């Protein structure tokens, strides 16, 4: 089974909204060794001009995850989960994620390339807030190893 080239350009249905909790931001911050008070202390965050604690730069992966699960589960996608390796990751922020945000992610497959028997699938998850304003785009390239 190989990756279906017709996935390129496909846009998936938006996933259910993700409500960013303050304790989740703190828990995630501790997990990535983030010690900045703006990640943990609402007063420090407010003093810096934010509505609540600010999530670390890689927190968007938590919101993105459900969209990647959609991609891997796509019936005609041909992506064998056991052969997938995370190749590249990028986050482009229009504004930071803060506790209290309700975020909705929508995945689009932007590119499929084949290189030496492997497939490189690039997927962009566009993440917007409750007003529909763009917050961050999370871009992953998954490497799907070919049959040996």
């Amino acid at each position, binding site marked *: 089974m190989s990756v279906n080239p017709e996935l390129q350009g496909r846009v998936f249905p938006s996933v259910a909204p993700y409500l960013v909790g303050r304790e989740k931001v703190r828990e995630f911050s501790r997990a990535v060794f983030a010690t*900045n008070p*703006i990640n943990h202390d609402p007063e420090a965050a407010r003093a810096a001009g934010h509505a609540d604690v600010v999530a*670390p730069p*890689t927190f968007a992966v938590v919101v993105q995850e459900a969209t990647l699960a959609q991609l891997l589960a796509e019936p005609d996608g041909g992506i064998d989960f056991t052969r997938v390796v995370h*190749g*590249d990751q990028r986050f482009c922020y229009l504004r930071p994620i803060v506790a209290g945000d309700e975020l909705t992610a929508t995945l689009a497959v932007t590119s499929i390339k084949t290189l030496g028997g492997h497939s490189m699938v690039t997927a962009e998850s566009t993440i917007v807030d409750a007003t529909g304003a763009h917050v961050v785009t999370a871009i992953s390239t998954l490497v799907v190893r070919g049959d040996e």
Partner: protein
Amino acid sequence: MTHVLTDLTVGSVVAEASFRVTRDSLVHYAGASGDFNPIHYRDDVAQSVGLSGVLAHGMLTMGLAVQPVVDWAGDPARVVDYQVRFTRPVFVDATEGALVNVVAKVGALDFEANVARIDLVVNFNGATVLGKAQARVNLA
């Protein structure tokens, strides 16, 4: 305190840090992120797919590597763009853990946007584990 773009020099080191990643760190990250792939906590499963043992989540390495930049910038919100390529696994020994070293240097300066590109060199066991690791920091 906020850094001023004109005070920065391409190539200069702005931050350095070392992180001791242990199996506890991996369990913690699994819970916090929701990534429960057993190759990050079970040696037998890791070995069954050809790895020498449990390895750190790539997203954990990515997540901690930017922290010296966040602290240098003074506010996590200043990191407006962050990308990496995962090039080598970080194997986490059951007793010793893994020592991950990060050096952050000025890679480029965009005076129009008031953004500094900070390039990260992330090492484990004498080899780099992330490629093209770049954080764009808004100093406006």
